[in-house]
C-alpha cells in the first residue's frame, strides 16, 4: 500500500503538497529495490529544476540511480540529514527520508502526476 494523500511519478518519486510548496522523495518500492542506501546527492537551495530532469543521485551498496524532478520549480530546501544518515531513505521514505522542498513553477504539473491508485498499478505491472 502506498500513502493515499501523495502524488507519484512512474520513476517512483512521491510529491506531497504543503501550502504553496511541495516535498519530494522516493517511494518505499524504490527504496526496497535499491537496497541499503549509503549516499544521497541533492541540489543546492536556489537551484531551478525543470520537470523530468536529473536533480541528484541515490546510491546503494551495489548501484547508482538518478533522481528525476517530478515537477519543475525552485529548490527551497534539501534534507541535509541524508548526508549523515542516508539509511533514512530505507527506514522512513515518506517521512524523515524526504529529499527536496520545491516551490512549483507550474501548479498544473502537480495535477498531472499519478494518484495512489495509478501508482500502485505502475508497481504491480513492474
Amino acid at each position: 500500500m502506498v500513502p493515499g494523500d501523495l502524488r507519484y511519478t512512474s520513476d517512483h518519486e512521491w510529491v506531497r503538497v504543503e501550502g504553496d510548496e511541495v516535498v519530494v522523495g522516493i517511494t518505499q518500492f524504490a527504496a526496497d529495490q535499491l537496497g541499503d542506501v549509503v549516499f544521497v546527492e541533492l541540489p543546492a537551495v536556489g537551484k531551478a529544476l525543470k520537470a523530468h530532469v536529473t536533480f541528484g543521485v541515490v546510491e546503494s551498496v551495489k548501484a547508482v540511480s538518478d533522481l528525476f524532478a517530478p515537477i519543475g520549480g525552485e529548490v527551497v530546501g534539501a534534507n541535509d540529514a541524508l548526508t549523515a544518515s542516508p539509511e533514512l531513505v530505507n527506514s522512513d521514505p515518506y517521512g524523515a527520508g524526504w529529499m527536496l522542498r520545491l516551490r512549483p513553477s507550474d501548479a498544473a504539473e502537480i495535477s498531472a502526476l499519478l494518484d495512489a491508485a495509478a501508482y500502485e498499478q505502475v508497481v504491480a505491472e513492474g
Partner: protein
Amino acid sequence: MTDTPAPMSQPSPILDRHEALGAKIVEFAGWLMPIQYGGIIDEHRAVRSAAGLFDLSHMGELVIEGPDAGAALAAALITDPPALAVGRAQYAQICNEDGGIIDDLIVYRLGETRFMVVANASNARVVSDALAARIAGFQAVLDDRSLATGLVAIQGPKSGAMLQPLASVDLGAIKYYGIAEGVVAGLPALIARTGYTGEDGYEVFVDVDKTGVLWDAMLAAGRADGLVPVGLGARDTLRLEAGMPLYGNELGLDTNPYEASLGRVVKLGKPGPFVGRAALEKVSRDGVSRRLVGLMLRERGIARHGYPILVDGAPAGIVTSGTQSPTLGQAIAMAYVPTAQADPGTMVAVEIRGAPVAAEVVPLPFYKRPA
C-alpha cells in the same frame, strides 16, 4: 535487436532454500544465485561479528589426477603446485601466452597425485577447456566436477565453533589454506580453511545432491549464535574490504599478475616451461606502467567500477571496484593507476559524474581481521 533468447541459467542446487529464506535471486555468471536475503549491510556485519553462510555451488571444481598431475599443473599455471604439501592449498592464476590472466584459482593438493582446482563460475568452462588442453601431454586426467559438486562456505569469527559439532575432524588442526577429508552433517566432505571475506572460515565441498542437507544442517547449527545466510552482494563488499581481486573487475586478459600487484604469485624460479613464462619474465624484468592500488576517497562520493582516475586533471587510470565500506563507514575502491602514482599517500582524483573527487592511495587490505 535480435530475438535470440538468453541461454538458460543454471539454478543453484538449493534455489528452493534461498527462496524460502526470502532471497532476492539474480542471474550471475550463468547461474541463478541469491544476491541478498535481508540487507547487504546487515549480512556484511554478521560475517565480521559472528558468521555468514554462503552457497557457492556456482564455483567450478576441476580434479586433476595421475602420476604427472603436479607437473601438468606446473606447466599450465603460473604457480608451483608440486611444491604444495598434501592437504595444503595455494592462490594461483592461469595465464595465456601473453601473460594475460584467464582466471584466478585456488589449487588444493588432495593427495600425492590428486589436485583440485577451484575456478570462478564465469570462467569454469574456459578454465576446464584450457587445463584439459594443457595437460594433454602428461600422465594426468581432468575430471570437471563443477556440476557434480555443491559448495557451502561458513565465514566469520564464530565459524569454527559453529561447524565443529557437525564435523568428524578437528577443525583446528586444518591450517589456514589447508584442506582435509572428513564427514560433515553425516556427509562425506572436503573441508577447506579458505574463503573470500577476510575472515577465518571453512568451505565444505559435498556431492551436489547433498547440498541442501549440508546447508540446512550448517544454518541450524549456527542460527542461535548469529549465523545468517549471505548473498553475493555482501560477498562482494567483504572481499573488497579484504583487498581481494575479482575476475572481471581487477583481473582479466588485459591485465597481468604484476600489474595486479600479485607478482609474488608468479613462480619464475620453478623448473620447466609454463604457459606465459616468456611474457611474464619480460614484465618482471621491464617493470609495469600501471598498478592495482587501494583508494580511500577524501571528499564526498563513491567511486564505482569503470570511473576514470585523473592525474593532473587528465584520465590516467580506472576504478575496478568501489563501494561504501560497511566496516569503515568510508568510500573505498581499487583502481589501476600509473606506477608513479601507486605509492601509499599519493593523492589522485576519481571522476564522479564529471567532477574530480580527491582520493588517497592506501595500502591493501582495507580491513584486516583482529589477530
